[in-house]
């Protein structure tokens, strides 16, 4: 059957099982919008800014196993979406971005609303396409979904000139695509896996360090089985939280710049390190030279070969899907005659428990001003530890990561790689659309929330009863903290003056708002808000403006060079 390009776009989305498209219309995508209008398989969610569309599609992906799709117009539509695309790229989130483009005959002539979309987005997508011939459209859509979801996932952009959406051709959606240039490795090398196992069994001070790769590969059950069988300590990166249960006794907390004392100490002092779906980035291991000061054997499992030996040299590289590798490693362990070095492991746990005894996340519970950590602790209690929690970027993000103990994957949604303020609210929308029965909270700060505040209107239109937990310290707290530590208390431009009345703002958008300024009111307010399951509630918690995130490893320092609350 002959279809127009616009019909092909919509039919391809339907064929991929796409439920929602997050988007914003404009001239170059009008044919596509016209086709969306005529059908009801693929539902469109109208955001209020294209950054919100990209973050919502991203949040939808992160909170489900499905692919988020975003649709924007040429020129400013694309440039507005770039922050969201780069955010997804840094965290390896599978996502499809469809962008309108000026007609093929106008490309390169500085036409109205023309930008070089493929050029602008090239460094922040896994791949992108410009479709100049309608006959290439269906196969390009198929390739886009294939590339986005396989190997190390990532955003893929399809740029479609307006005339291509109007032209017609025969439509057949391919069942599959074969690309000779793109064949991601799935199964890990068995020989390497058995070498890894030998190292693990010889270890005196073993450590398991896992990242977002576990979540992306849906490998948390397989990880838990292995960690429990081995009895080793396990830490997660900021991106990996929920990949291993946060309340498990073998969990030593998050590691890195704001990781726990015990996680960072164990990471530094282990003799065998098993890294899975993590990439040793600067916020995780600090200065790589300092990390290399102590010699340890490193096993690194990752689907992306370029992540291996990028920042630290590894001894046993294993390229493959982390779930497949975990299954095989566990199978080999079960078949192996030997066992772990129990006495050494006991001594190692004694050491780790001594580090744990420092109670590095301790804070003042007697204060008569609301401590932000307390709000997150209560949030965890009130939601039974089972909410989907999104966040923005800053101190509140770190407190959410430290104090909300995520037991399951895809519950913790944050911009770890790019660190994008404005991510929290739109990603919460996407997360809720993907899980219409879930409790969704957005932990944010008064600065971050204002970066995509317009999406409160989208929440109203689509009845998204998100709970916004605003830790309002009147400062760009994380900036203020750095200024306090490293810039002689000179708080340059980090005070948030002229803040809006968030309660009235929420009400103006048709939602409910609450302002809480006493510690005793924190829990009742949370309970009341979460009881209102059909309403978005904006909880504005007036918190201690001077509170800092501890522990902290300053940028460029060694991982064990931690500033602790007790030091001050």
């Amino acid at each position: 059957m002959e279809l127009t390009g616009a019909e092909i776009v919509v039919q391809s989305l339907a064929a991929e099982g796409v439920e929602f498209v997050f988007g914003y219309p404009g001239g170059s995508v009008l044919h596509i919008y016209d086709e969306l209008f005529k059908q009801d398989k693929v539902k469109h969610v109208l955001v209020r800014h294209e950054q919100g569309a990209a973050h919502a599609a991203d949040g939808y992906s992160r909170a489900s196993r499905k692919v988020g799709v975003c649709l924007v117009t040429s020129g400013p539509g694309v440039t507005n979406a770039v922050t969201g695309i780069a955010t997804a790229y840094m965290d390896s989130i599978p996502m499809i971005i469809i962008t309108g483009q000026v007609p093929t005959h106008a490309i390169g002539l500085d036409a109205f609303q023309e930008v070089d979309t493929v050029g602008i987005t090239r460094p922040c997508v896994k791949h992108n396409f410009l479709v100049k011939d309608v006959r290439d459209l269906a196969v390009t859509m198929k390739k886009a979904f294939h590339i986005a979801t396989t190997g190390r996932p990532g955003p893929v952009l399809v740029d479609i000139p307006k005339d291509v959406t109007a032209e017609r051709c025969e439509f057949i959606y391919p069942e599959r695509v074969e690309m000779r240039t793109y064949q991601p490795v799935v199964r890990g090398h068995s020989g390497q896996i058995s070498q890894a196992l030998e190292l693990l069994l010889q270890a005196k001070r073993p450590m398991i360090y896992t990242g977002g790769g576990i979540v992306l590969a849906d490998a948390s059950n397989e990880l838990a089985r292995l960690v429990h069988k081995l009895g080793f300590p396990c830490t997660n990166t900021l991106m990996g939280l929920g990949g291993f249960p946060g309340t498990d006794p073998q969990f030593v907390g998050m590691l890195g710049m704001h990781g726990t004392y015990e996680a960072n100490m164990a990471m530094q002092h282990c003799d065998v390190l098993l890294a899975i779906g993590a990439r040793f980035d600067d916020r995780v291991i600090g200065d790589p030279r300092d990390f290399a000061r102590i010699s340890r054997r490193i096993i690194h499992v990752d689907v992306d070969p370029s992540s291996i030996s990028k920042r630290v040299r590894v001894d046993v590289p294993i390229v493959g899907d982390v779930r497949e590798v975990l299954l095989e490693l566990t199978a080999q362990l079960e078949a192996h005659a030997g066992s772990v070095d129990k006495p050494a492991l006991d001594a190692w746990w004694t050491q780790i428990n001594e580090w744990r005894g420092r109670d590095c996340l301790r804070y003042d519970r007697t204060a008569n001003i609301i401590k932000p950590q307390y709000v997150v602790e209560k949030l965890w209690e009130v939601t039974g530890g089972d909410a989907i929690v999104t966040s923005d970027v800053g101190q509140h993000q770190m407190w959410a990561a430290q104090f909300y103990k995520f037991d399951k994957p895809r519950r913790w949604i944050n911009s770890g790689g790019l660190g994008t303020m404005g991510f929290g609210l739109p990603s919460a929308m996407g997360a809720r659309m993907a899980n219409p029965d879930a409790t969704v909270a957005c932990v944010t700060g008064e600065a971050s929330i204002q970066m995509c505040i317009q999406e409160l209107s989208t929440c109203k239109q689509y009845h998204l009863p998100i709970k916004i937990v605003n830790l309002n310290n009147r400062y760009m707290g994380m900036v203020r903290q750095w200024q306090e530590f490293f810039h002689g208390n000179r708080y340059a431009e980090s005070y948030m003056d002229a803040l809006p009345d968030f309660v009235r703002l929420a009400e103006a958008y048709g939602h409910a708002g609450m302002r809480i300024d006493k510690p005793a009111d924190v829990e009742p307010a949370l309970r009341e808000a979460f009881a209102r399951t059909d309403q978005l509630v904006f909880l504005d918690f007036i918190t201690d403006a001077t509170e800092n995130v501890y522990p902290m490893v300053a940028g460029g320092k060694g991982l064990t060079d931690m500033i602790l609350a007790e030091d001050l």
Partner: protein
Amino acid sequence: MQHIISILLENEAGALSRVAGLFSARAYNIESLTVAPTEDPLVSRMTIVTSGSADVIEQITKQLNKLIEVVKVVDLCEAGHLARELMLIKVKATGAARDEMKRMADIFRGRIVDVTDAIYVIELTGNGSKLDAFIEAIDADLILETVRTGVCGIARGDRVLSV
């Protein structure tokens, strides 16, 4: 250390800019880059001369392999290989310099491919250092213009880079 990276990639619009963009985004250096279609018009072959530690070269090959349009990547310097570059050099050729230029071109096995009463264009092929040596050997004041293709390379013996 200098490395010669050979890349087979799909001959598609934008593929070149992906490779060039990768090098600039990740701060890898490019000493020269050549690209042209192969006997298979769907495939182009690119040769990049770069330098860096073993770790950097390992990252470069891994990152190149990640590009969707890249079919294959090899570092020719891992084994015996040939590297050639072509130079066209326009020189003044008057008076005594005219004979001298001809002699130098002969010594370096160059060919004079364009002649006027005052100018020669000399074509010279070889590895980079031979071309450098020619430039060193002639009087700098006589050089009007040079253009070099950048290195292209191929492995010696039965090592073959193909799709």
